[in-house]
């Protein structure tokens, strides 16, 4: 999976991007939690949540088909594969047969509910990532008080990873040009060698980065550049979203 597409999520100026990244992240989590909270077979409510996300996407001027739907297809496929077990292993009244397995009514309902919830949460995540650059995400993490070491590590890793990926490609090319054998076993050996080399380079670069940081006065703590402001607009937007989601969940549970 290529890492380079990360940087293509440039922030498109829109009502959504005027809200600070931390609020956007919390909004995504709210929608995902809402989807998780609707009971089984709550089809209209799941549809409502999905439409809510797509409406937000439209407001953010994110293309619905080429981005929202397309980017969710692959992860959703994975969800389907992972939930096949749900389809056949839940006891209940049999309704269909899938090869040697029996699909029960309870299993079918669960399978559908899982897909519906997963799709809604996926769309929310895709929307977040399409409207938020990586440095902005890091600001959000910092604001939401994730462990400092993690935020710092991600910031450093972001740069280091690009460099490492280039080096991996170079090492792979070198291995290929040396005609390092075709069998699975020899390819494994080559890859193990590359992995170990990458680890060595990651650590060497880490060491040199540390030197560079020391040279610029680093004393152990990475001071943050600026705190992204949390304004009234952020609170209001997030509260409105939370109310909408909560309303849908309440509607599902009351029905």
């Amino acid at each position: 999976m290529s890492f380079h597409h990360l940087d293509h999520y440039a922030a498109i100026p829109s009502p959504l991007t005027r809200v600070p990244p931390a609020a956007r992240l919390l909004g995504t989590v709210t929608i995902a939690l809402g989807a998780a909270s609707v009971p089984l077979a709550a089809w209209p409510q799941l549809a409502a949540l999905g439409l809510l996300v797509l409406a937000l996407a439209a407001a953010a001027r994110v293309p619905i088909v080429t981005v929202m739907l397309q980017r969710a297809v692959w992860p959703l496929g994975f969800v389907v594969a992972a939930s096949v077990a749900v389809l056949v292993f839940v006891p209940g009244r049999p309704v269909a047969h899938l090869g040697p397995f029996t699909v029960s009514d309870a299993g079918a309902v669960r399978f559908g509910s899982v897909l519906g919830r997963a799709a809604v949460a996926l769309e929310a995540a895709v929307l977040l990532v399409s409207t938020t650059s990586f440095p902005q995400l890091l600001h959000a993490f910092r604001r939401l008080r994730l462990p400092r070491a993690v935020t710092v590590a991600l910031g450093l890793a972001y740069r280091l990873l690009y460099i490492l990926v280039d080096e991996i490609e170079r090492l792979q090319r070198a291995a290929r040009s040396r005609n390092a054998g075709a069998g699975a076993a020899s390819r494994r050996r080559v890859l193990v060698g590359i992995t170990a080399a990458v680890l060595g380079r990651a650590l060497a670069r880490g060491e040199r980065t540390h030197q560079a940081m020391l040279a610029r006065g680093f004393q152990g703590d990475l001071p943050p550049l600026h705190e992204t402001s949390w304004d009234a607009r952020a609170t209001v937007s997030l509260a409105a979203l939370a109310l909408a989601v909560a309303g849908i969940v309440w509607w599902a549970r009351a029905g």
Partner: protein
Amino acid sequence: MAHIPDGFLSPSVLAGTAAASVAALAVAARRSRATLGEREAPLLGAATAFVFAAQMLNFPIGAGTSAHLLGGTLVAVTLGPGSGMLVMFAVVLVQALLFQDGGVAALGANTLNIAVLGPGVGWLIFRTGVHLLGPGHRRRLGVVGAAAFLSTASVGVAVALELALSDLVPFGPALLVVGSVHLIVGVAEAGLTMAIFALLGRSRPELLARATAPSPAARRWAWAAAAGSLAIAVATAYLASARPDALQAAAARLGIAGPDAAPLQGPFAGYTAPLGGPWVAAALGVVVVFGLIWGVASLAGARRRL
């Protein structure tokens, strides 16, 4: 496979695992800072980048399939458990948000499984093994392999447990499907971790020095871990047996001649926990046992030093 997407887990499991993750990461952050000191930032950055990079390399394991290094045990063994957990959390976080690998609401569960349990178990098994079996490169290598395998297997058990506690699938079939996948992945992880560990031992032995420096604290952790794992196993068995009917039906469906005799009714069958469901009881039980053993071991160690 280890990453659980959104949609599978119930709100109470999501909340519980999230709470447990937050607590574990807080401890991990303190421990990481204490262990690595002012080199923490660049080291964690390098390790995080490495895990990402390594997860992109696919190793052919025959029959047209390939696996990639997960890295939890490797990072925990080389940097220490706290730092290992932070690194894996960073990876899980970015995978969930940017690659939709693992859910957003399920981040707590995935963190607990892949970033806390995985490295934690891997590290504990490694330290325990090294303590029990002593130094020696080949022995260390074997211990690393076992640690990586058991670490991956424990992730599988945790996933199955969370699925069952969410009332999505019965525990038995969940364990069967998820567990078997994780056993296979565990073998690959063990092989890859051992190979890299061996290469590191030759090219950069100073990195592994931390991995084998003995300390009295490790002894306590080893005892606590052994007792804790036992408690987890026992609690799991009781919880599973709390839904004997589902297990029976599933076993019948799978064609397994189930025990027609009265199903194993643990004392927790039909237990209704005061708040949050049975998982809270299990988590509390584990924490209590863990804490007791740790406390006893600390006292024993302290007395020995006097």
